[in-house]
């Protein structure tokens, strides 16, 4: 890679002693960035700790506060910030959250926060650091607000593959298929989108891929942009929801994991990704639909027949226990619609408890991805956050749309070349 590595400031507590420092360094290097420790003097530590006003006891957390302050005040330059601390440490969790908030409010530097244990590997960190690196390196690309020319985006997700063709800021072709074989599914959705738009592949001026299969599909179709889904989805979301200026929060409950992204002027500021168990993901809702004998596309309508299902005992913290709760609720005589609503409520609750605590929720809250079409889930999330959740048109095509939008940045470059 000829580009200069993106410099990511590491503000962590406990990484070396958890035995995972090498995993962090390796993940950063894999995505073309370099971790560094912001250099502060003892005097800075003492004063930062006093000025910040959070009287923590752990010296390494005092050091973390001082390092963050040195970056925000411009004494040390960084392209991105990685804040992390040990999972289950309350003191560090408070510092992590407050530092993230402080950085987002006082600087334009992208930040990701994470809690680790000794099992955290480089692969877990990879997508997060890739997104952080992208935001830092491709700020001008990310700033695009209008689609131009004729472009295509392909989102090769864990459950479904999607394709969008855009022309002059309008969606003119769509394709959607469950993911079976990655390349075959991609070819199918591309063919569907081309057919709907009435175009040929040679009419497409630039392409982008995202999602789990992005590298494989990107190579297959020689894509101009191959990009992780955190940045692409958030871009697609604010574009479709017409919320490109100011703050927004994007929630994507996916088939395998969930993303919560805090966006400012169309550019992701902080984000989380994960989900301890499939119980807190779209997968649990698929299982619910199967058990209730309805198609997943009908689960939303069914759940809306219920008031919310909050009184049905349901815990999707673990998908195994969650499924057991489903069976028990039905056996106890609860109505199918109440059980459907309870499943939606449970997933929303897990996402709220596990992930939304790591980003600042600012309105509008935009839900995207296939699960955003399940009205019961959107309603449950809205109640949880006490806000009207926005679901933009084509929300299930969010990654593909974001890809098509960002791909238009490559048209001029190709013409120049």
């Amino acid at each position, binding site marked *: 890679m000829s580009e200069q590595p993106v*410099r990511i400031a590491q503000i962590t507590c406990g990484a070396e002693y958890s035995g995972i420092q090498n995993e962090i360094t390796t993940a950063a290097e894999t995505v073309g960035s370099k971790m*560094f*420790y*912001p*250099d*502060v*003097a*003892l*005097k800075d*530590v*003492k*004063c930062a700790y*006093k*000025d910040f006003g959070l009287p923590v006891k752990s010296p*390494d957390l005092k*050091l973390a506060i001082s*390092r963050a302050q040195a970056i925000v005040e411009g004494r040390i330059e960084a392209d991105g910030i990685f804040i992390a601390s040990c999972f289950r440490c309350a003191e560090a969790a408070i510092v992590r959250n407050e530092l993230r908030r402080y950085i987002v409010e006082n600087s334009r530097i992208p930040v990701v926060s994470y809690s680790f244990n000794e099992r955290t590997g480089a692969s877990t960190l990879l997508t997060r650091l890739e997104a952080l690196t992208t935001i830092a390196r491709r700020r001008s690309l990310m700033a695009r607000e209008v689609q131009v020319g004729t472009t295509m985006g392909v989102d090769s997700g864990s459950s479904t593959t999607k394709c969008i063709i855009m022309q002059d800021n309008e969606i003119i072709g769509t394709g959607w298929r469950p993911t079976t074989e990655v390349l075959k599914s991609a070819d199918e959705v591309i063919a569907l989108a081309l057919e709907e738009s009435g175009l040929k592949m040679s009419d497409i001026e630039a392409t982008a891929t995202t999602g789990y299969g992005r590298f494989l599909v990107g190579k297959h179709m020689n894509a101009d942009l191959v990009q992780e889904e955190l940045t692409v989805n958030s871009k697609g979301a604010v574009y479709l929801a017409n919320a490109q200026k100011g703050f927004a929060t994007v929630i994507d409950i996916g088939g395998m994991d969930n993303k919560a992204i805090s966006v400012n002027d169309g550019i992701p500021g902080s984000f989380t990704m994960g989900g301890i168990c499939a119980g807190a993901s779209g997968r649990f809702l698929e299982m619910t639909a199967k058990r209730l004998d309805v198609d997943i596309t009908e689960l939303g309508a069914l759940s809306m027949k219920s008031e919310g299902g909050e009184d049905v005992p349901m815990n999707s913290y673990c998908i195994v226990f969650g499924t057991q709760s489903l069976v028990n609720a039905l056996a106890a005589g609860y109505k199918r619609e109440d059980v459907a609503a309870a499943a939606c409520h449970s997933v929303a609750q897990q996402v709220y408890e596990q992930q939304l605590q790591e980003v600042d929720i600012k309105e509008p809250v935009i839900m995207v991805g296939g699960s955003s079409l399940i009205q019961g889930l959107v309603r449950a999330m809205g109640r949880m956050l006490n806000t009207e959740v926005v679901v933009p048109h084509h929300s299930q095509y969010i990654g593909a749309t974001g890809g098509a939008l960002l791909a238009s940045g490559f048209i001029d470059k190709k013409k120049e070349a």
Partner: protein
Amino acid sequence: MKPYVPQYVGTITKYVFVDSPDTTPQDIATAAYEIAQGVMIKETCFGCQITGSPEDVERIIAHLRKLDPYRIYVKDRGFPPGDARRCRADLGGARPGYLGHEYEMGLVRYIAYGLQETDRMTPEELKAAAGQEMSMPKALDIDILESLMKEE
């Protein structure tokens, strides 16, 4: 995972710090070089680091301590000197331990005075001094005081 083959197995490394109006870090390093006999000496901004067999390192330290008995301080180090894993140039910033040293080096002038005074004491006087209460309240840190004055 890459295998790891350690270097300098069986050696020890010690930091030698000096905080004195009479002896410079360079004096310490020069004196250590003079009797090094092949032992690895690395001059630093605070004194030097010595890496070798435990006997060799102790021999050199015993010699160095004589130069300024109350103002030379020695401590074990886990890493050999210049190790890229701990080097400021590679990490972008100081390893955390550096700041701890910085803190304690601000206090060693009291230790130097204590060492000098206790050296002159009889066993009874030492016992009496050891039994003194350290009742003075913790003084306001000088850096904090400075920042408060700036705020005013």
